[in-house]
């Protein structure tokens, strides 16, 4: 625990926590307005980014991912005037901060107990956030996500208890497992994995996430998607680096393939853009899982996939943010008159999610498939690659409608959204042309400063 006090991620975490308290206090005392809340949120996000200079490995990735996602959330919060379903400006700033705290906790966790704390913080914040919008649909989605999250969290705790029973500690199980404790630890790990799979949105536990992603406002969906994927990836990193889960890789690979194909097939006939993105999240969860199924050698690929996925998903949701919580059908796209900037950003995001080179999503797929081939063999890799190919078709379906009316009247986004889009595009372009950069960022330090257990 001695390293805990100096951990840069912990400093970020404390900044966020202080920020939440300040926001809550200042609003209840002075009643400041939306704009100020968002700007304070932006400052908090910047503050949480500062410790990144001294951070290493997983902590660096966590701080970067969380702070950038939070900046995005804060900036888009300013743009929510366009969205008549979002009167709760304070909540829509505080909840992302809480979710960020959860993700950072998961990244710095030294044991299953701390991991559980982070997981539950993230789940609760996400569930409430899903339910923020007006109308029964969002409320229902939030409630479902809460219920399923609680159920899987129960499994997590049960699994933790079993592991504790076997090893006498909350530490991430390591190999070799003591022969007498083997069954207890393995059963415990399986239950823990179920909870993480739910967070990741892996089939067949994807239903709750699907409903949530479809119901929440687009900006919020993007942030929740980014956070839950990041959190799940950090949890997996701990579990896989611990080594106790080494025997599961084939099961994970199976779930990964099922997930990829459920994502592909579910997206294929969608005409609602948001449902399409929700199902695509299931497919991408499969690629995440595939990376971690490859064991320690796949962890780097998984983290690399995560960072590229987050960039693409934030870019895409920023492009369609501020448009309320109703379904967006492809037909509606023609009438939406997206500005060229928004349309380009959305098109690039879709193409990256589809995995078209030289966009970041493609490099990430290449990395994961490479790791998968070297540890899991050709059959699994080929099936995954095939799923990725069929995916291209459905991602591209909305493209024609996207540019259909671009020359006729258009809605220019708010200045702040434009700024967010430009920043996201710059990051996106950098990751496209210098894949090695994102790869270095996501590198776990090989020295003791990396993942500490």
């Amino acid at each position, binding site marked *: 625990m001695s390293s805990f006090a100096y951990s840069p991620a912990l400093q970020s975490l404390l900044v966020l926590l202080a920020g939440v308290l300040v926001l809550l206090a200042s609003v209840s005392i002075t009643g400041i307005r939306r704009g100020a809340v968002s700007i304070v949120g932006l400052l908090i996000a910047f503050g949480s980014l500062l410790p990144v200079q001294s951070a290493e490995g997983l902590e660096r990735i966590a701080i970067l991912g969380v702070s950038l996602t939070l900046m995005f959330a804060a900036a888009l919060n300013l743009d929510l005037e366009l969205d008549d379903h979002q009167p709760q400006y304070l909540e829509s700033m505080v909840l992302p901060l809480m979710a960020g705290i959860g993700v950072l906790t998961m990244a710095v966790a030294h044991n299953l107990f701390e991991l559980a704390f982070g997981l539950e913080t993230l789940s609760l914040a996400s569930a409430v956030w899903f339910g923020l919008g007006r109308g029964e649909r969002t409320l229902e989605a939030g409630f479902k996500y809460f219920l399923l999250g609680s159920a899987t969290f129960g499994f997590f705790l049960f699994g933790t208890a079993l592991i504790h029973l076997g090893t006498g500690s909350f530490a991430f199980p390591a190999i070799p497992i003591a022969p007498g404790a083997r069954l207890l630890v393995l059963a415990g*790990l399986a239950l823990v994995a179920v909870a993480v799979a739910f967070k990741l949105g892996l089939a067949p536990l994807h239903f709750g996430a699907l409903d949530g992603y479809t119901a929440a406002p687009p900006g919020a969906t993007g942030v929740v998607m980014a956070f839950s994927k990041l959190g799940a990836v950090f949890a997996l990193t701990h579990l896989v680096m611990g080594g106790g889960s080494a025997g599961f890789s084939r*099961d994970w690979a199976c779930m990964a393939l099922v997930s990829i194909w459920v994502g592909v097939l579910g997206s294929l006939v969608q005409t609602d853009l948001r449902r399409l993105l929700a199902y695509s999240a299931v497919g991408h969860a499969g690629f995440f899982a595939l990376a971690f199924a490859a064991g320690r050698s796949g962890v780097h690929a998984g983290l690399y996939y995560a960072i590229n996925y987050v960039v693409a998903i934030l870019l895409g949701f920023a492009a369609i943010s501020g448009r309320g919580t109703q379904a967006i059908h492809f037909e509606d796209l023609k009438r939406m008159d997206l500005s060229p900037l928004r349309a380009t950003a959305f098109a690039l995001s879709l193409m990256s999610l589809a995995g078209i080179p*030289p966009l970041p999503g493609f490099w990430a797929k290449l990395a994961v498939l490479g790791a998968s081939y070297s540890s899991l063999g050709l059959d699994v890799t080929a099936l995954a690659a095939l799923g990725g190919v069929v995916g*291209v078709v459905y991602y591209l379906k909305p493209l*024609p409608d996207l540019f259909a009316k671009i020359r006729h009247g258009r809605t220019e986004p708010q200045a702040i959204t434009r700024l967010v889009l430009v920043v996201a595009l710059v990051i996106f372009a950098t990751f496209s042309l210098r894949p090695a950069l994102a*790869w270095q960022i996501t590198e776990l330090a090989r020295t003791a400063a990396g993942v500490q257990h």
Partner: protein
Amino acid sequence: MTGLVGWAWLLPLPFIVLGLLGLPRRGGAVSFLGPLGVLGLALLGLAQLGNGQGVPDVRIDGFLPFLPDDAFVTHPDGLALSMLALVGLVSTCIYLYALGYMEHDENRHRFFAFLDVFVASMCLLVLAGNLTTLLIGWAGVGLASFLLIGFWWERPGTLSAGAEALAVNAIGDAALLLAIVILPVGIDSFDDLAVAARQGSLVHRDLIALLLIVAAFAKSAQGPLYFWLPSAMAGPTPVSALLHSATMVAAGVYLGVRVSPVLAVSPEVSRLVLWTGLFTMGFGGVMSLRQDNLKKGLAFSSVSQLGMMFVALGIGAPFAAFFHLVTHAAFKALLFTSAGGVIHALDGEERITHMGGLRKSLPGSHGLFLIGALSLIGLPVLTAGAASKDLILESALHHERWLGIVLVAMAGLTGAYAGRLYFATFHGSRGHGSRGPGGEASGSDAGANAAGQGDHAVHAPSGWLVWPLVPLAFGALGFGFLEVPGGLLSRALAGVVDAPELTPVVTRLGLVAGAIGLAGFFAGRLLVPARSIPLPAARPAWVQASSDAFDFLAEQTLALHTGRTSRYLLVTVVTASLAVGFVLTRP
């Protein structure tokens, strides 16, 4: 100076920026400098090679650190430089042509910016020294193709044609990607690949060969993956000429030539290449005979000619395949651009049943089209097409007697569809078939502004639509002399691709094929359609069937998503129980 050759792919990039900024005022007026520079650098490099000196590689290590072999490499050898010169030459001509063709298009800047994206990607593809670098260019040309096919997005069918092209290209990308993933550690260039293949030390040899060839098939519209190319004709004609006949679709053949040492040691895959190429060759020719649309007729001709190049690859004659690629680029670009002159003069009319008798009003386009058509059918001695086709025929005859005979017979088919398109467009009387039943209903892709107006007045073509094509015409006639009798091309390619012994300018086989081709050409006149032809089904059956199967599976997947929380909870509990059960029952 020659150190710059490896960077030639960067030359079009400044013009992309200019185009996006809306400069210069006459959109694209300076963009041709990009491909012209590429041509210059390529010739410089070739001259250097001719002096017996090498051209330096460009190598950036650590570009894709997650791959065992992570370098970004451009390797300007003889094969790459020859192809680069070809791309530079054809692109320059077509850029100038497009200045005239797109003169009245308000989005001209964007058009040239997309073309620049294409040329840059194509140059990267050509110069690539390893598969990873090739894949970047490979995907870039696919994306440019998608953007350019959909350039006239407001016309019905263009965007879906673009998406179709991208989807098929994605199949090829996936195959290439898998090939990169399974390529053994330590093979980080095409040279290493060739060495490993020759030594017999290549692990997964057949699988790698198969994946590479699937990628080539997707790009070059071979076998079952042919269908995107005819649809791609929805794009502007300069695009059809540059991307979808001369250069981009030939990238598959180029890849085949590049990896020919792997094919050479993998007889099963070679046989697959041979049969697919042969089938596609015949199929493309027959389909061309059934088209009402001038550009689609030419597109199926490209499918057929590419099939012939794959036949050459399949029988282990990569040099002949590449030689035909070069001559085909010249005469097919010429055919498309001169056909574009006709279409432009008729305000976008593409149906041959609405053409006819245009040789007097459009003498420039007529002459150029005729040169292209004669080179396509392989008129001996006079045309380039004859020289390269002759080489393929000779190789085929040496390989298997029956194959040579089949290919010679197919020359008649080539002649027939070339003649049919030629006579329907330039001879006979104007609008000879337009009075047929369903004439207006079977509108072309440009039908949005053509249908319902009957025949159009022919307006005088601008010089831009004729003069830039003259170099292509010289190429269509004279590119044969690159190899016969001097052997210039085989010397340039020495060390990369083994060339056969020198062939004479004319062989008996070539004369026979030429005669059959000419006979077919005149017979084609009899096949000129008397009335409009209803458009055949847009998609082949297997595409429709697999699309239906996916739709069915998709509905089943969605049916699981009921929205009932109790069901979700049940699934969660069952999954957790199964997970524990699996783990505990495992030994």
